[in-house]
């Protein structure tokens, strides 16, 4: 078994896929804690769709996919964070519109693309095995930046997300910390979406933190559990996909969501 594993990861494409899964997935899982606690899960679903539209436009315009992913993620963050002004459509309405239009337009743009690419649909189907070295390095860089910024400014992120009004009265620049959080989220989604598709990105964002939040009521345990589950899901999912000839992205996403059921049972028993 160990020999099989060792052999499996002698292939370069497997190592790149694992790198994106572990670093990108672990980072998205960590950011998912804030997505859950701030009650913006719908936004987490809509953002990958807008990022997908960015990637589709990049394909159509013959630009690097990563450029499309980053721009798509950032434009999505900008649009969704400024929507929902009083008297207009509620925030959920904007998020729903973004979800529906982002996903459908991405497919339409791809269909109309003058530069058809055989691998263009891999970010929809989640074929993580197509990941290249640059994409793997990008995932490491974004995860490293996110880890550093959150380590240094952890309490600022928590306090400004937990009670923005009180934070503002204390002079904390809430908009700045929100922007930084969403920037990390935008780049994180771009890093994973670009290689492994929206399914894996959303699965990582939602599954591991949901399981950790069900089991623990203190931040240190929630954070460690979430990151371990996210990174572990990438390894387990990728290995399983290789051994059983399954699609990589969806198998990793399934592994990311799998701990939710046992966590829910654990919570019920403990209650």
């Amino acid at each position, binding site marked *: 078994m160990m020999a099989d594993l060792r052999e499996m990861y002698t292939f370069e494409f497997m190592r790149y896929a694992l790198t994106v899964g572990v670093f990108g997935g672990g980072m998205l899982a960590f950011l998912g804690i804030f997505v859950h606690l701030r009650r913006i899960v719908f936004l987490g679903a809509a953002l990958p769709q807008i990022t997908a539209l960015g990637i589709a436009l990049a394909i159509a315009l013959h630009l690097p996919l990563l450029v499309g992913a980053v721009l798509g993620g950032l434009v999505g963050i900008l649009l969704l964070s400024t929507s929902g002004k009083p008297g207009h459509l509620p925030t959920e309405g904007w998020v729903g519109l973004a979800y529906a239009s982002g996903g459908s337009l991405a497919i339409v743009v791809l269909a109309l693309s003058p530069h058809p690419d055989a691998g263009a649909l891999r970010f929809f189907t989640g074929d993580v095995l197509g990941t290249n070295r640059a994409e793997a390095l990008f995932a490491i860089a974004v995860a490293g930046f996110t880890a550093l910024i959150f*380590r240094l400014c952890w*309490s600022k992120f928590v*306090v400004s997300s937990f009670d923005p009004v009180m934070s503002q*009265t204390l*002079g*904390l620049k809430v908009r700045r910390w929100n922007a930084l959080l969403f920037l990390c989220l935008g780049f994180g989604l771009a890093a994973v979406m670009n290689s492994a598709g929206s399914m894996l990105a959303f699965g990582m964002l939602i599954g591991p933190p949901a399981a950790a939040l069900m089991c623990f009521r203190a*931040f240190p345990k*929630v954070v460690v559990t979430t990151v371990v589950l996210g990174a572990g899901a990438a390894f387990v999912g990728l290995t399983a996909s290789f051994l059983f000839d399954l699609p990589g992205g969806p198998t990793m996403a399934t592994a990311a969501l799998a701990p939710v059921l046992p966590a829910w049972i654990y919570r019920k028993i403990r209650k």
Partner: protein
Amino acid sequence: MSRLFHFDQADLGYPSHRVLRDLSFGVDERDFIGIVGPNGAGKSTLVKTMLGLLPLCAGCMEWPGGRPTIGYVPQREQIDPIWPMRVRDMLQFTLTALEPPHWRRRGEDERVAEVMQTAEIDALADQTLDTLSGGEMQRLLLARALVVEPQVLLLDEPTAAMDLFATERFMNLIARLHRDQQVTIMLVTHDLQSLAGRATTVGILSHGTLHHGPTAEMLSAERLSEVYGHQVEVHRQNDQLFIAMQGLENGGQR
């Protein structure tokens, strides 16, 4: 006592809807002012303006000695208990959030232990937010406001939906802070009884403006009847105030 802040012919609210007009009043340092008024009178607008969350529409608001640190105590319903934090964590986060970015987390600050004792929540230090009762949560929010060593405490309906015992305990705590630590208190409330014997002055928001004066004068039957539009009876016994409203038999129609 010197003047802490004052409004001068200020219009408060939104560009499309001015809630309070031509407001001119001030609060002195170490004052305990209660702000009361019917629903929709502009209490929240006043709080938001004082906190700097809403700009003035007209006029001016001045802090003669410079803007002090304000400890804001919101209603506990504004707090989301799903956050995985213990009582001591919330206070520690608030304290460290104001410091420059740092690599190593410091040990628990003495200030956190001190305010937990002051707010009578030291026994709850390791409890998580979702296990706190309404009164405990409100005392935690008070502790969070105190942890930044404020000169002014601004409390927005802190005793709303609190039982009688919890209300009394909380109000006694506020009165003690005012008396022993000379903190200026600005308390927005619907609970008129709780102001009697505690607040030095009362401001009544009504019909787009604020009437301001000593507590006994402002909480009189005549004044309250005029503000609430119903016959109000006020009975006093020592520092206690008993208020009864008449004329509500027909769904509030006089």
